[in-house]
């Protein structure tokens, strides 16, 4: 039940915020942080249960056996990611707490904290659910939370950004439901393992249509082209929580779901082709757009799209090695994305802008932010001795060993990444600032404890980047264990259903 508590605890917290409204209002500042910390403990417990061999714990809701009731499964992959995600979420929630505006109305603060809690619960649920419709429900919960959180941002483009996200997300989820409709019409079940075992009885048309529709449903959250039109504006609206959440929690979780879909439920060539093409397009368009960006948050948003494109590319190729590479890539990238976005959001908070033109030489007065940015950028671009280097090399090698020509675009794009990241660093770090005294800080910006706390959080990430760069073995081993279960989908599916 531990997995279930990781979802129930935040949800009970959110409900209580309203049940005890008035009495709990001052407490609402701390509740998300407390719950996030509790979830880290739960995730640790989860991993304690099986660190050396693969785990497989099945939760049947209501005691109804697997394909009839809703089933949640905790396997090695979800245990590992539960831990990673819970730590990232804790950092994000804490930085949100630090960034809290003192003038904001108390009652809408409570709503916002409740929304964050509900979002957290849904995020963990997505890691464990083994039922396609339950997935849909949780995905919608996460999406609506994000629409609401984005709409609350103070940036002038926030409401329109939220609207765009909402409309695209609406289409995506409608397509997903269509896929479920067709799937249920043919196979009569919604349980992922059950579908995996029965998928071969689908006729060819359905076998092509269903995974495509499901993929398109996930495509919005995966920031896959062409459903990623919402990304630049939503990241651009800033805020301490949303961009970091999107890159550090949301995208990885949906990437994981995609992984399960492609390796266990529908390991069919048609799906992989679509992923390959979409991945290449996403990668190229993303990175070129990053190059052309004039705002830091947008540059990072497009960079995030680019790395998701790379992930899609990696996942599209069957094989155990690719599986490991794609997971490793995912983890290393999210480790760097969170501090990068954190610094960008921080700069926007302190100085009211993230436009490059207005942030010349800003790192000379924000030295720690600059250092964090430098280290994270080094990791993302793949400089040796940083965490991202190993991931990048492994990814490129895997691609090359699958098909030589697959290497070309990712390599080209890596060069682009170097260019725009170090251009940004040079401009913000090495150019002299506009005025001798440095850029004035906005009223209402972070100072004292809030400021130090925020910077500290991102420094921890930067530190981890350096540590994992030098000692990657721990993560590699965990990934090894996490993926062994997926290598034989039929065996895995049977095990999940309990030997039916």
């Amino acid at each position, binding site marked *: *039940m531990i997995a*279930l508590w990781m979802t*129930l605890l935040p*949800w*009970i917290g959110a*409900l*209580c915020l*309203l*049940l*005890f*409204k*008035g009495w709990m209002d001052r407490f609402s500042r701390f509740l998300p942080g407390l719950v996030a910390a509790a979830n880290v403990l739960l995730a640790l417990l989860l991993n304690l249960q099986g660190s050396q061999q693969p785990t497989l714990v099945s*939760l*049947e*809701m*209501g*005691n*109804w*056996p697997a*394909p*009839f*009731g*809703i089933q949640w499964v905790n396997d090695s992959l979800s245990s590992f990611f539960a831990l990673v995600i819970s730590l990232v979420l804790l950092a994000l929630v804490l930085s949100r707490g630090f960034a809290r505006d003192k003038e904001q*109305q108390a*009652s*809408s603060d409570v*709503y916002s904290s*409740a*929304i964050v809690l*509900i979002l957290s*619960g*849904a995020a963990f649920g997505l890691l464990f659910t083994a039922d396609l*419709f*339950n997935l849909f*429900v*949780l995905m*919608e*919960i996460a999406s*609506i*939370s994000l629409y*609401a959180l984005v*709409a*609350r941002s103070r940036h002038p483009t926030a409401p329109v950004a939220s609207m765009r996200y909402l409309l695209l997300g609406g289409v995506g989820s409608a397509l997903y439901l*269509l896929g479920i409709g*067709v799937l*249920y*019409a*043919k*196979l*009569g*079940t*919604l349980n992922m393992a059950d579908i995996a075992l*029965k998928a071969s*009885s*689908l*006729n*060819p*048309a*359905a076998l092509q*249509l269903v995974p495509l529709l499901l993929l398109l449903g996930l495509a919005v959250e995966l920031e896959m082209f062409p459903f990623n039109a919402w990304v630049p504006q939503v990241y651009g609206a800033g805020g301490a929580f949303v961009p970091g959440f999107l890159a550090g929690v949301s995208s990885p979780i949906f990437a994981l779901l995609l992984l399960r879909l492609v390796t266990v439920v529908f390991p069919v060539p048609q799906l992989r082709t679509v992923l390959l093409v979409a991945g290449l397009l996403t990668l190229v368009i993303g990175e070129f757009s990053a190059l052309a960006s004039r705002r830091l948050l947008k540059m990072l948003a497009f960079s995030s799209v680019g790395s998701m494109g790379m992930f899609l590319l990696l996942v599209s190729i069957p094989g155990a090695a690719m599986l490991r590479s794609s997971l490793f890539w995912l983890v290393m990238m999210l480790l760097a994305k969170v501090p990068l976005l954190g610094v960008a959001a921080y700069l926007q908070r302190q100085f009211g802008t993230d436009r490059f033109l207005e942030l010349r030489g800003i790192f000379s007065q924000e030295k720690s932010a600059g250092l964090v940015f430098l280290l994270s950028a080094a990791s993302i671009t793949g400089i040796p001795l940083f965490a991202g280097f190993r991931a990048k090399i492994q990814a490129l090698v895997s691609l090359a060993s699958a098909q030589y020509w697959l290497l070309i675009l990712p390599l080209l794009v890596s060069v682009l990444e170097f260019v725009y990241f170090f251009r940004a660093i040079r401009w913000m770090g090495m150019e002299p600032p506009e005025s001798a005294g440095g850029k004035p800080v906005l009223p209402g910006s972070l100072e004292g404890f809030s400021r130090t706390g925020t910077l500290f959080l991102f420094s921890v990430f930067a530190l981890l980047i350096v540590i994992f760069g030098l000692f990657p073995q721990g993560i590699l081993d965990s990934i090894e264990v996490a993926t062994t279960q997926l290598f034989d989908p039929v065996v895995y599916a049977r095990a999940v259903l309990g030997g039916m």
Partner: protein
Amino acid sequence: MSRLWAAGIVVLIGLFLFLFLSDAQLGERQQVPVSEKMVQKNVLGTNPGPVIFGQSEGLEEGSANLVTSIVVGYRALDTLGEIMVLFLSALGVGAIAHLVWNQKLQKEAPSFILKTGAGIVFPMILVFGVYVFSHGHLSPGGGFQGGSILAIGILLLYIAFPTFELNRVLFQRLEGFGGVTFVVLGVIGALAGGAFLFNFLPNGVVGQLFSAGLIPILYLLIGLKVGSELGGILRNLYGGE
């Protein structure tokens, strides 16, 4: 985008969908659907005979409304998710409503017919709403439907009586209460039977009002929650904070 492009894209997608869907032969099932066993209330394998309205007793699942048996029985976790979605949209509306309306909506003076009619119709709406969610396991309906009906009653009050104001805090507490109790009952189920949302109350005879174990209670909670939630949204739309 221009209408021509839009039409073109839609036609293309439509052709694609129709082609694939007809090829997929939706009418032909390849496998027996899981709902077969749910209809026979034989998922656990303990019920060999058919379920008979008004006679079958102590089954694994006691609701005469088969859809309800799925929504609040076999797939109850999705319903918890559904509750959270509505909760979320009420929160979302509340979170940005103060940015939209900073004064109350000016309501037109209602006519005599409206005022008198509302007074007569409102209690009926209330009764009907309560009927719908309390009989969710016996006839079409349930918590969500019943709650919506209650909310319509509240809307009527807003329209007919210019000075009507919903007690915000009370309804928010109702919302929270409904949700928390739902989860708590689920946890009690876990303690009593080993899994979250396990139906630990006796199932009684299929077709009677007091049957189906936990289901009427859950639907009651959902009805209260949904009613107060939608009422709260209405309140926000009318410009209260």
